[in-house]
């Protein structure tokens, strides 16, 4: 028997009055994958998640999650999914352990099993020591980890994580990524992850859909998407008071020129990143004084820019896939 795709959406549309927040989304998420849903604020990510998790009815289109229709079989969908929404709405007056038990009760799990699973999950997310403290005293990262544990208490087939690391410091973000990877690897849970951070999508997701203006503008694995953008760019800086012509003459042999910052020359490396050693040698032979060299690999931000003509908001804050070679002379 073949396992149905855990998420299948066809022509999902959601309007709020005259505003079309989601304008016809088609999606297929395969069993056991981490699917990244990347887009800027207001792109329609959360609205799509809210429709897939039965919190919002689609205006048009259909969606099946864990094999059930999100409108006609909403209750079965809710039994099959774990949901960690934006901002980790967790009752600050209760302790972590109490909240896990409550979540278990809401999913119809008996007390003995709830205690056992709750303790195991607290251990998994590293909150055993803080389990009996009120959530109001938790840090942002601890709340997100508890939120993740709560969404897993009933061992869901599909886990929805809506911007799980927004507002977290880098350490908490990396720790949460580890949890998600481990969960996916060990239990095979399908994960649908929305994020505005391209690095997060790049690190975690096997496949990515980029959404903008309520529509999916690109879809594929991170490597496929980046390959579509093209070759890496090499920028050589000779300094603002130096003539860029000698450097330009050397670099022309390695690829087509692209716009660069003042005092710099850039080309798209036709032979890929492997040519960087040859470029350095050629510059040295031509006695070009170089202040710095930067290799820019195509990033998801470039994918986004190619698809929409704009840069992705928050891209800088989450780091980038650029690599840099500096001071060769």
């Amino acid at each position, binding site marked *: 028997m073949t396992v149905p795709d855990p998420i299948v959406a066809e022509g999902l549309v959601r309007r709020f009055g005259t505003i079309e927040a989601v304008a016809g989304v088609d999606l297929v998420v395969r069993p056991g994958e981490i699917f990244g849903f990347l887009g800027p604020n207001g792109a329609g990510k959360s609205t799509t998640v809210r429709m897939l998790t039965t919190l919002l009815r689609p205006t048009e289109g259909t969606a099946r999650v864990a094999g059930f229709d999100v409108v006609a079989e909403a209750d079965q969908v809710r039994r099959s999914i774990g949901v960690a929404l934006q901002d980790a709405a967790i*009752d600050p007056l209760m302790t972590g352990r109490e909240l896990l038990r409550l979540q278990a009760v809401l999913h119809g799990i008996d007390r003995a099993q709830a205690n056992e699973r709750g303790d195991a999950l607290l251990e998994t997310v590293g909150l055993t020591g803080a389990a009996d403290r*009120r959530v109001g005293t938790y840090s942002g990262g601890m709340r997100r980890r508890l939120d993740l544990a709560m969404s897993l208490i009933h061992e869901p087939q599909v886990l929805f994580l809506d911007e799980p690391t927004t507002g977290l410091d880098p350490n908490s973000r990396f720790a949460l990524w580890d949890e998600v990877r481990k969960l996916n690897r060990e239990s095979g849970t399908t994960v649908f992850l929305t994020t505005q951070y391209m690095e997060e999508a790049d690190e975690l997701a096997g496949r990515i859909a980029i959404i903008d203006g309520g529509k999916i503008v690109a879809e594929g694995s991170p490597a496929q998407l980046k390959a579509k953008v093209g070759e890496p760019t090499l920028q050589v800086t000779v300094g603002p008071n130096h003539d860029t012509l000698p450097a330009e003459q050397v670099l022309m042999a390695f690829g087509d020129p692209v716009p660069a910052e003042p005092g710099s020359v850039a080309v798209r490396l036709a032979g890929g990143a492997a040519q960087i050693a040859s470029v350095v040698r050629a510059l040295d032979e031509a006695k070009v004084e170089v202040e710095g060299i930067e290799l820019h690999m195509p990033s998801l931000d470039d994918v986004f820019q190619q698809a929409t003509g704009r840069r992705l908001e928050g891209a800088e804050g989450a780091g980038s896939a650029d690599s840099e070679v500096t001071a060769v002379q």
Partner: protein
Amino acid sequence: MSVAVAQYSGLSRRAIINTFRQPRYFIPSLLFPLMFMALSSAAFQRTTDLPGFPATDSFLQFLVSTTIIQGALFSSIAAGSAMATDIESGFFERLIASPVARTSIVAGRVMGSLVFGFLQSWLYFGVAFAFGMRPEGGFFGMLGVATVAAVFSAGVGSIASSFAIRTGSSEAVQGAFPLLFSLMFLSSGFFPRTLMHGWFQDAAGINPLSHMIEGLRYQIIAGFNLGELAVSLAIAAGFFAFGVSMALLALRRRLTST
């Protein structure tokens, strides 16, 4: 234990725990009626000698049932505010994203109000007892009063919750408070109807709170009487039925409007 019962009790437990963990909310709502009881008992003691005033040992004895209902009003508004806070914080959304029975979202709060209303009544009785109140109806009279107060608490808590579900705003719930408080002052809770006159007497006469409190007061100043208690309980049950219907209707509207 069935899944639905476990869900009801889990959410009720949370409502009760949350109430007790926010002393800055429940202590004022406990203390204000007590202060009012203390001040009124001292100020209006002589009024019990007025011709037409029901036979009673003290104004405190006359007033304690009113204090209990006043406390129920205060704490029930707090229950509604807590529901609104759940909506504002997103916790409500977490609940509806789970397969929990929709009715238990309301029932949890209702049960929380019911239990708190019951316990609060005994606290008021305890304080009044310390200051000389001796209920003519004995333990069963007090039990009857506490039971009616609990049902009334659950009813008003449901009305407050329905405002919360409809508006999603704790300010809007607080805004309903003066309305309920006016209903309290336009009743015979603080003074017997026999000594009122004019429009005030008419208003108190048609106010269901007057009849509910008079039935409760009877247990304290005259003695345990099932008939009087049944009238009070029926009125509290009316508030309960109305409140729960309003809350469930508001919940259904909220869920289908999304």
